[in-house]
């Protein structure tokens, strides 16, 4: 009965209720759209940068990430590989061997980062072949693929010979003549100028580091929570290893996202602040207009607790109506633009692609987004309900009926 009266009370002043519900609807709709684009952009950035190269989680020997020295490399024992591979949420384990050294062609020499990759396994994370500008992936241990900037610096091309000179594992000399099998565009000017890739086997041989990797990149399952996978793996390993997530490895990306996110949250906060006053205005009027009626109800024997519940239900129902319709209107659009993403126009798309980001922005559609906004509206309704609760608590039925 209380619910029935609350429902009917909402429609006593249809125009006012519709306007209030509509304001909630618009706020929810706009917030969902705005956040969906924003979070979709972040997810796309993370997937591009993290998902396609760094990986969400990496295992190194403790201290490697700070020193980046090949001497702090991991020995890929079967026991280690099995422990990590068998962890729930781990899709694949990608060993990489990274080291620095000098690359020379003729009179020119340049410091580069040489990455040894297992190209077959790497295909899970990144489509390296698609990044080839010229040539093929390394097929032999002495094949090397150089970044576009490196090739440009040396005026080198496919089938040229380059010389690598550096320090191998535990002070061994790493020097060899290498064959350029391909030129690659890593979609990042800085990386293009400093990166060369070769097979893991080739790199291990060059650096006298058989069975060794500087990092084990974890390709996690899509729905596996990052932090919990990281925690489980860390729990399985002793403290000679460090298990880092992308946020720890790339704090600058995390900070860029956080800084941008603050702007979006601020907009939502402003929208909701306006909404609080809108809902409060309605509740204030509803309460003031009905003080007499509240007095009558308490006089005839309705306990104040029930009266509070009734008024509270009115606010909650009105708010949830707005939320529900808002979500129902927004979600199909979000789904549509998730599967048929927004594509940035011309120069903006070029700029994004230059820095390795996709020009496509798929909207974020995880259910946590509408849930968060429904909870926010629910909290606002709770907050706004304090006013009628206080009024009813203090209500003297006789005074209320005298007006």
């Amino acid at each position: 009965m209380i619910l029935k009266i609350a429902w009917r009370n909402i429609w006593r002043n249809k125009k006012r209720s519709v306007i209030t519900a509509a304001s909630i609807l618009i706020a929810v709709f706009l917030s969902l759209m705005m956040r969906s684009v924003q979070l979709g952009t972040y997810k796309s950035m993370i997937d591009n940068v993290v998902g396609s190269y760094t990986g969400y989680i990496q295992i190194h020997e403790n201290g490697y990430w700070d020193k980046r020295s090949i001497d702090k490399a991991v020995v890929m024992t079967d026991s280690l590989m099995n422990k990590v591979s068998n962890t729930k949420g781990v899709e694949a384990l990608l060993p990489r061997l990274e080291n620095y050294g000098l690359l020379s062609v003729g009179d020119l020499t340049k410091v580069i980062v040489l990455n040894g990759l297992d190209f077959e396994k790497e295909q899970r994370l990144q489509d390296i072949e698609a990044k080839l500008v010229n040539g093929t992936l390394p097929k032999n241990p002495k094949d090397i693929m150089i970044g576009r900037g490196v090739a440009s610096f040396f005026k080198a091309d496919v089938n040229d010979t380059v010389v690598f000179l550096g320090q191998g594992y535990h002070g061994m000399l790493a020097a060899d003549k290498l064959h350029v099998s391909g030129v690659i565009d890593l979609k990042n000017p800085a990386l293009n100028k400093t990166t060369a890739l070769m097979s893991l086997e080739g790199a291990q041989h060059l650096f006298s580091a058989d069975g060794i990797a500087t990092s084990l990149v974890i390709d996690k399952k899509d729905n596996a929570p990052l932090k919990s996978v990281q925690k489980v793996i860390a729990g399985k390993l002793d403290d000679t290893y460090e298990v880092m997530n992308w946020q720890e490895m790339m704090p600058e990306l995390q900070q860029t996202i956080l800084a941008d996110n603050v702007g979006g949250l601020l907009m939502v906060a402003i929208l909701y602040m306006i909404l609080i006053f809108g809902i409060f205005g309605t509740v204030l009027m509803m309460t003031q207009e009905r003080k007499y009626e509240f007095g009558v109800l308490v006089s005839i024997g309705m306990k104040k607790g029930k009266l509070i519940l009734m008024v509270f239900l009115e606010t909650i129902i009105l708010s949830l109506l707005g939320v529900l319709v808002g979500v129902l209107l927004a979600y199909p659009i979000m789904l549509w633009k998730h599967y048929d993403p927004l594509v940035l126009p011309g120069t903006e798309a070029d700029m994004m692609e230059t820095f390795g980001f996709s020009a496509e922005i798929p909207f974020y559609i995880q259910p946590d987004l509408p849930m968060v906004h429904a909870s926010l509206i629910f909290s606002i309704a709770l907050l706004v309900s304090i006013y009628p609760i206080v009024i009813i608590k203090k209500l003297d039925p006789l005074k209320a009926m005298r007006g």
Partner: protein
Amino acid sequence: MNVIKTENLRKVYNEGKGNEVLALNGLSLTIDKGEFTAIVGPSGSGKSTLLNIIGGLDKPHSGNVFVDQVDIIALEENERINFRLRNIGFVFQAYNLIPVLNAKENVGFIMLLQHEPKEAINERVDELLTSVGLENQALKRPNEMSGGQQQRIAVARALASRPKFVLADEPTANLDSKSTAALLDIMEQLNEKEGITFIFSTHDQRVIDRARRVVTMEDGTIIADILQAN
């Protein structure tokens, strides 16, 4: 057996503010079960204050009120609300029906608050709607009914839970002669049939004429208390 007993009630409004009004001045009154009593007197004589105190809506500055031998002044707020719900029926001058409920729902509302079973509520509501002659208006909302019809629904609501007594504050003030007569007929019938005690505050001579006991107040005291044969 008395249903209501007040002893030496004293109530002052605006106490200590310079414009003090002595609404009740040592008033004592006993009302027995089944009475049909009118409390009359000029405006400001203390009729409504007395009814409010008996109904547990107001508290006196001094004195005692026993309703069915319960000291209602000593009750906590929620206990007092519950006491009103279980023992007292109210009929207001302005009807005060719940606008979003239809006639049937309004009459059954008090029983719902008492958590009575649905079947019992329906049976009692149908019986009362027939008693007040509005069985055909059961699904109408208050704004679709005349003042007289609304007041009859208000009486039915007040009686639905079979209270010990009904307090009616100027129940006929907004009604025409025909509606007043019909309402008084209904209340008289229910008083006789169900033995419910009725106490009215009124200026209306038509009500006074039909009452079996007339208590006249002036300046917060009883100046006459007459039993009359109808």
